[in-house]
């Protein structure tokens, strides 16, 4: 099954939601993954899926998307790219370290036990060189404030 059909099945997306993209690359300008890789363009990935090209598991977006929805917040057409990426991960059988930590915590303790999640995830953050970005990422949280609330 082509990836696009898979993504459509797993999200509540229709084919047209992929193609309505304007190609403005606003998503790439705000994408958190770009703090690490510097060449991530969600719009390009969306277009490739739409054109029926396969996305590999090595793709930085598939590997490191945090599902922050900053792209959706800034996108003129509010395209929910993280939903698509989650569907891709499901199809490609990729799990991020966070997902592993959360799932492990649930299966061990029956709930999300934060110290366990941190214990599992922090080494990954340090090894991947993510710690230097943490302060900046905290600032991004302002982005999630409701529409028309001014950041200062």
């Amino acid at each position, binding site marked *: 099954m082509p990836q696009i059909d898979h993504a459509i099945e797993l999200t509540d997306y229709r084919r047209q939601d992929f*193609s309505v993209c304007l190609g403005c690359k*606003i998503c790439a300008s705000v994408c958190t993954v770009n703090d690490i890789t510097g060449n991530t363009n969600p719009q390009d990935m969306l277009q490739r899926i739409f054109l029926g090209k396969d996305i590999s598991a090595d793709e930085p977006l598939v590997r490191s998307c945090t599902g922050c929805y900053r792209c959706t917040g800034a996108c003129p057409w509010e395209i929910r790219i993280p939903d698509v990426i989650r569907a891709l991960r499901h199809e490609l059988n990729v799990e991020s370290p966070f997902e592993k930590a959360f799932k492990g915590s649930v299966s061990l303790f029956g709930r999300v036990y934060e110290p366990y999640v941190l214990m599992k995830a922090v080494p990954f953050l340090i090894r991947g060189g993510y710690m230097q970005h943490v302060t900046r990422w905290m600032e991004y949280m302002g982005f999630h404030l409701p529409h028309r609330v001014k950041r200062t």
Partner: protein
Amino acid sequence: MNVLIIGGGISGVSAAKVVLKEGHSAVILESTPELGGTMARIANCRIGFKTFYDEIKDDPRLRVVRGASIADVKKAGDGFSVTLTNGEASGFDRVIVAAGLSPYDPVEYKGKRVLTSLEYDAKIDQRNGELPEDFEKIGFFLCVGSRSKEYPLCSSVCCSYTIREVKWTLQRAKPEIAVFYNDLRLFGQEFYLEKIYRDAGVRFVRANSRYFEEDETGVTVRYFVDGELKEERFNYVVLAIGLRPNPGMKDLGALFGFSVNEYGFAAERSPLATDADGVFACGGALEPMNIKDSILTGFGAGVLAVRDAEALIAEGRDQGLLRDEDPPGITMPQGTFSSCAFYLGTDDPGEAMFYEYMSARFIEAARTLNEAGKTVYVVTKNIVMPSYDEVTFEKARREGVVIINLEENQSFVPQNGGFAVTGGGKDLAFDADHIIYFKDYAGSFAGREFLSVHRSEPQLRWNPTRWSRKKYHVGFLRHPRDKRWKPREILGAVGEIILDREEERLYPTIEEERCSGCGSCMDACPQKAIEIKVADTEVSVFGPISNTGIPKAHINEDSCVACGLCASTCPSDVIKLPEQEQKIPNCTAIDNRR
């Protein structure tokens, strides 16, 4: 007849001009203390508006009500009985809605250094003093608050306005400028401006951004181009805000009984007329439009309100005043094939001004082919589909037409059995049985007398359809664009004919005896209304009389606008403008000087 004009912006004043010219009385209702609307918020357009309005402001049949809005409307026979919020009440036979547009306010991005285009306009206005000291690097970002899920229309003026802001900036200072765009939707000759600024070092980047991190000294912007993320500092960031419908349109619709469409603009039953009898709409009440089109639709609505437009159009056609040509069609690929590509790109600004027409035709063709089950690619360097056309463009995208936007340094390469997109960190190859090029159709525009090609910006603005006093261009021959404009342009042209016809003009006179035929008046004439004709004259110099050709200036009254430049240029005072009667009766300043 008594006509109520709601909105004192440029389209309302244009409508008032036609109404007054026809001898009816008009009331302009303006909700703010000042006339001018959005146009007067632009520093460089304020004077133009004032001059335009000054021509009618002393008319005794015109009344302007400022700072009031409509409280209540009752239908009274064919007309309306209107009560204003300031307590006034009067009866009107016709109503023209010219409520205008309201600029979008991007509160979530705005800051001290992230400005909207109107705030930036005030910053570079000469009357507001010196420019800030750190005026070295400025970034313009287009499509803020338009072309989105919330408001799917294109505002159609922000690109043109940005190009002008670049111009006004460069007139005062020499900062480094970058323009970040999705598509450059310019009108007509503005593509030449774009070319000029490109050559002068203004950077155009086909990428947009919403990452503005503002601090004390500047703004950090991130954008994605050439396959990688770039981070750049700007001193100021300008957001080209979109124009939304006036939020009061719904209330007006409820009061007068006309309907408002899903986007918040007046729904047109027939061109420029709403679905309530006796209520007409023009300018920004219809859709986002530029100043030239606002004036044009204002003239049209004025005609509809006070005259029988059908009869006037028929009369205009009989006299051969209205001029139009049929647009060329698109040749659809024939036979069996599975895929087709359209390449919408040109580097010649002379061809680029037909983007607006060709984009709409290409998208129309692409949708037809897509519906027939073909794979359709549209590769664009620039796709110009302003205001309602953007909705068509959105439909095409939703239906699955693949749109591939080329970045500045990407190129379209035709290949065996298809095409490739190369450069800028991207290499894509596609199969296509047919490729249809923009340049194949460029030839069908050559040699035609388009008004938007042959007339300068101010001429097009103040005389939106006039080619000469005997020809008024409408439809395809005015400016190639969407079909919905043609009937509006016909009405506008009729309005312009009314304004032109009765106007008494004083043409310059030439004393042919003394004219030496030097040609300086011909060079000075901005309308090219003077030609040098060789007249046969008998001369006798030291002997028998012989015939000689002597050049004489000749004025073509059809294109003369009586500006008087020829009279002031003439070295021997041969051309004179007849004295105009003094309009201001007791001007003390002139008396004192004498």
